[in-house]
C-alpha cells in the first residue's frame, strides 16, 4: 500500500514537473521572447500561475488512469512501464497545452519588413517597411479567376492586433490578418490530427477550472467551492477508479493497454458529447419541448454521473462475485 502511494506521488510530481517544464520550453522562448521582444522572466510566473490547475488535473487523470488500471507490474522492474506511461503523458500533455496556449502568441505587429505574408484563403500581403504598428507601402494580392486583377498597392497601413486587421485608412479598407501570425503560426501550426481529442480535453479543462483570468489559488478555491466543478471532477475520479475492471479484463496486456487509451479518450469524448447540440436535439425530440438553460448546463454533469453510477455498480458486482468465488473455493 505504502509502495503504491509512493509510486503515485512520484508519478504525480514527475508529470507536474514535466508539464511545467514544457510550459517554459514551449511557450516562453517561442511565443514570449521571440515573438514579443522584451518579454522575459515575469512572463514565467504569469504563464505557470495561469495554467497550474489544468496541469494538475491533467496529471491526476493520467496518473489515476494508468496506475489504477495497471496493466502488468512486476515489483522491482517498473522501468519500461514507467517509460511508456511517461512518454504517453508527455505527448498528450504537450499536445493539450499546445492547443490551449497557442492563441497567446500575439505580438503587437506580426508583419515583417520586406516580406511576403501568406494569408488564409490564398491571399498574400507584402509589407515594405515596418515601424511599430505602421507599415509603409503595402501590397495586397487577392485571389483571381480568369483575368481578374490581383495586386493592390497602398501607401501605408496600420496593424491593429486586437481586431487582427491591417487598416488602410486612405482607401477605408481593412485586411484581416489571418492567421494572426502569418509566418510563425504556419511554422508552429497545431497538429490537426489531435483536434478531435484536444477539443474535448480543452472543453473539460475549461469546465473544470473556469475562467483563467485570475490566479491559481483564487481559481482553486473557486472551483472547489462550486458544486458543478466539484461534482464534475468527482465523477471523473469515480469513472477512472471503477474502470480498471474493464482494463484488466483479459490475458492480453496489449489489448488491455489499447482499451486503457480508448477509455481515456472516451472519457473526454463522452463529456464533449454531453455538451453537444446532438444530445439537446435528442432530448427535444424525446421530450417534445426545449429544456431550460439551467438543466441544459447540467446535462454534461448528469451524464457523467449516470455513467459513473453504471461503472460503480459494475465494479461492485465484479467485486462481490469475485469474493463469492473466493469463498466457494
Amino acid at each position, binding site marked *: 500500500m505504502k509502495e503504491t502511494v509512493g509510486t503515485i506521488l512520484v508519478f504525480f510530481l514527475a508529470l507536474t514537473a514535466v508539464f511545467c517544464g514544457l510550459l517554459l*520550453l*514551449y511557450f516562453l*522562448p*517561442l511565443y514570449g521572447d*521571440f515573438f514579443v521582444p522584451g518579454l522575459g522572466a515575469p512572463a514565467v510566473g504569469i504563464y505557470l500561475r495561469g495554467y497550474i490547475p489544468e496541469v494538475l488535473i491533467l496529471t491526476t487523470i493520467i496518473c489515476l488512469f494508468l496506475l489504477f488500471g495497471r*496493466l*502488468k507490474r512486476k515489483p522491482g522492474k517498473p522501468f*519500461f512501464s514507467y517509460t*511508456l506511461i511517461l*512518454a*504517453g503523458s*508527455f*505527448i498528450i500533455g*504537450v*499536445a493539450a497545452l*499546445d492547443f490551449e496556449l497557442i492563441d497567446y502568441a500575439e505580438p503587437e505587429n506580426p508583419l515583417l519588413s*520586406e*516580406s*511576403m505574408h*501568406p494569408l488564409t484563403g*490564398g*491571399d*498574400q500581403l*507584402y509589407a*515594405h517597411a515596418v515601424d511599430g504598428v505602421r507599415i*509603409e*507601402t503595402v*501590397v495586397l*494580392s487577392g*485571389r*483571381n*479567376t*480568369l*483575368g481578374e*486583377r*490581383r*495586386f*493592390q*498597392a497602398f*501607401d*501605408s497601413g496600420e496593424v491593429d492586433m486586437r481586431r487582427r486587421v491591417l487598416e488602410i485608412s486612405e482607401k477605408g479598407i481593412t485586411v484581416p490578418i489571418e492567421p494572426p501570425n502569418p*509566418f510563425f503560426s*504556419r*511554422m*508552429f501550426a497545431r*497538429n490537426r*490530427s*489531435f483536434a478531435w*481529442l484536444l477539443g474535448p480535453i480543452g472543453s473539460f479543462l475549461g469546465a473544470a477550472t473556469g475562467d483563467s483570468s485570475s490566479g491559481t489559488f483564487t481559481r482553486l478555491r473557486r472551483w472547489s467551492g462550486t458544486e458543478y466543478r466539484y461534482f464534475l471532477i468527482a465523477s471523473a475520479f469515480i469513472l477512472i477508479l471503477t474502470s480498471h475492471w474493464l482494463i484488466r479484463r*483479459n*490475458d*492480453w*496486456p*496489449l*489489448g488491455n*493497454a*489499447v*482499451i486503457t*487509451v*480508448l477509455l481515456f479518450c472516451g472519457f473526454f469524448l463522452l463529456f464533449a458529447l454531453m455538451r453537444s447540440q446532438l444530445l439537446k436535439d435528442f432530448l427535444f425530440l424525446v421530450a417534445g419541448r426545449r429544456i431550460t438553460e439551467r438543466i441544459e448546463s447540467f446535462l454534461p454533469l448528469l451524464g457523467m454521473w449516470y455513467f459513473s453510477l453504471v461503472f460503480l455498480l459494475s465494479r461492485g458486482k465484479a467485486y462481490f462475485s469475485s469474493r463469492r468465488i473466493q469463498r466457494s473455493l
Partner: protein
Amino acid sequence: MKSPSSPTPSGKRLLSITLLAVFIAFVVFLFHALFTFPRGDIFALYTGKWVIALAALRLLRFLMPVLCSAYMVALSLKPGYIIPKERERSIGKILLFFIVITFFATFFNEISTPLLNRRISSMRTATETALEFKEKGIEEYERENYPEALTYLNLYSSMNPPDTSIQPLLDTTQSKAQRQLTAVREEEPRTRPDVRRVTGMTAEELTELAEDYLEREDYRSAYYYSGIAEQLGYGDAARIKNFAAGKLADTEPEKEIREIWSLYEREQEGRSLLEFERYIEAYYHFLNLSIRYPSDPDIQKYLAESGERVREVAFFYEDIETYLLHPGTRDLILLNRRTGEYIEFISIGTFFRDTKTYFFENVEVLRIATSGGNKGDVLIHFSAPYGKFQNGSINLTCISRSDPQVRFLPRHLSDSPGGPLDNAVPLGVPLERVLGFTANPYSFEETGLFELIDFIDLFPAHGLRNEPVMSELLSRAMYPFSFLIMVLLFSSTGLHWKRRGYTVSFLSYLIIPMIPVVIFFLIQGFLSIEKSLLDFIVLKVGILAASFVFLALQGILTFFAVAVFIRKVLKER
C-alpha cells in the same frame, strides 16, 4: 534439405507480416478513398485515378503506424513465430530487416509523396478549371458573345467528355457563333498597311535611300522609295522616281512590269516592316501575300524569316490553346525583382509546362518605386492574358498564327500611370523553381527534396522566410530515424505486453483494428514534439546548431530503441 523443425528465417517471416499489413492497409485505404470520393469537387472521369492515388498516398502517410502495429501485434500474440530459440543469432537479422524496411519506406515516401500530391491536386484543379470554363461559357452565351461562349464550352466539353448534358447548348452556340462571325466578316473593311507610316522615315531619308539604290542600279527599289518620298511631298523624289521608271521601262514589257511591280511593291512593304523590326506586321503581311502568291519563292522565304523573327518577340495562341485544356499549376505569386529603384511583383494565374515549353495564363505585373521622390508610387501595373517563357523572360505578346485580328497583348490596369508597356518581363527565379511560389508557399506537400534545398537561398531573395524550409528539411531527415526508432520501440512493446496463457478471447481480437489508430496518434505526438524542439533551435540559433542537436537526439534515441529491443529479445522466453 531443411529439417521440419528448422526455423524459417526471422527476416522472411517479418517480410510476410510486412506485405500482409501493407496489403490490408492498402485495401482499407482503397475502400475509404472510394467511399469518400468528393463527387462535387472532382469529375467522375477521374474516379479510378483519384482513388488509387489517394490510397497510395495514405498508405505512405500511415506506413509507420501500420507497420509498427503489425510488428507489435505479431510479437505480442506470437513472439515465437518471429524470434526463434537462437535469439542471439536472430537479433542481427531482425535489426537488418528493420533497417532495410526503413530505407524503402523513406525512399518511397520522399519520391512518391510529392508526385502523388501533385497528381491529386492536378485532378482537383482540372475539375475547377473545367467548371470555370463552363460557367464562363454560359455567361458569354447569355451576353450573346457566341464565339467566346463556344470556345469556353468546347474547352469544358473536351475536359469532361462524359458530360453529355452540355451537348445541346454546345450545338446551339456553334450555329449562333457561325452566324455571328459571318456577319462580322462582311462588315469589316479590308485594310492595307500605310507604308509611309510603316517605314517611320522622313521624306529626305527615303530620297537618300532611293539615291543609294539608284547608284547600285537597283531601279525597282529606287522607284519604290522615291515614290513614297514623293507622296510625302519631297520635290527631289519625283526626279529619281521618273529616272528609275524610265530605266525599268527599257528592260521589261509594260503589263508584266505592272504585275511584277505590284508584287514587288508589296514585298518591299513587308521587307520594310522587317527592316524596321516590326516583325508581327511583317509576318501577317507576308502571310497574306503567300495566300495570293503561294508559289513565289521570295514570299515564302520572307514569310519563313518573318515567322522566325516573330517568335523572338511574340508567340502563337495556337501553341498555348492545347495547354489550356490541362489543369496546370494555379495562383503563383512572386516578388520577382528588387532593384535600388523599385520592387516588382508578378502573379501568374496558371502555369503550364511541358518538357521544353512553358506557358502562363493571366499574368499581372506591378512595379513600385522604393527610392526617390516618388517612393511608394506605382510605376507600372499591367496584365496580359497569356505569356510564354523565352530567353529567361516571360514574353507577353500573344498573336494568332493565321488571324491578324486575334491578339492578346499586355494592357494597363486602372491604377497604372501609363507609359510604354513591357513586351517581356525577366523572371527573377529559375523556371524550374517557380512552382514553389504558390499562394501558400510554406506548404511543402508537393515539393521534392532538391527543390527544398534550392529554396533555402531563393526564399529570402524573394521576400519569403527560409526557416520553414529548414524546418521541413529537418522533418524529412527525421523520418528514417523516427521510423526505425518507432518500429523498434513498438516491437519491444509487443514483446513486453505479450499474451499470457492461451485464453485470449475472440472479442479481444476486435481491438486490433484500433491499434494502428492509437499508435498513429502516439507517433504524431512524438514527431510533433521533436519537430517543435528542432524548429525552436532553428529559429533561435540557426540551421547548423539545429542539425547538431538533431543528430545527437537521433543518435541517443536510436541507441535507446536498439538497446531496449535487444534487451527485450534476449529476455524473451
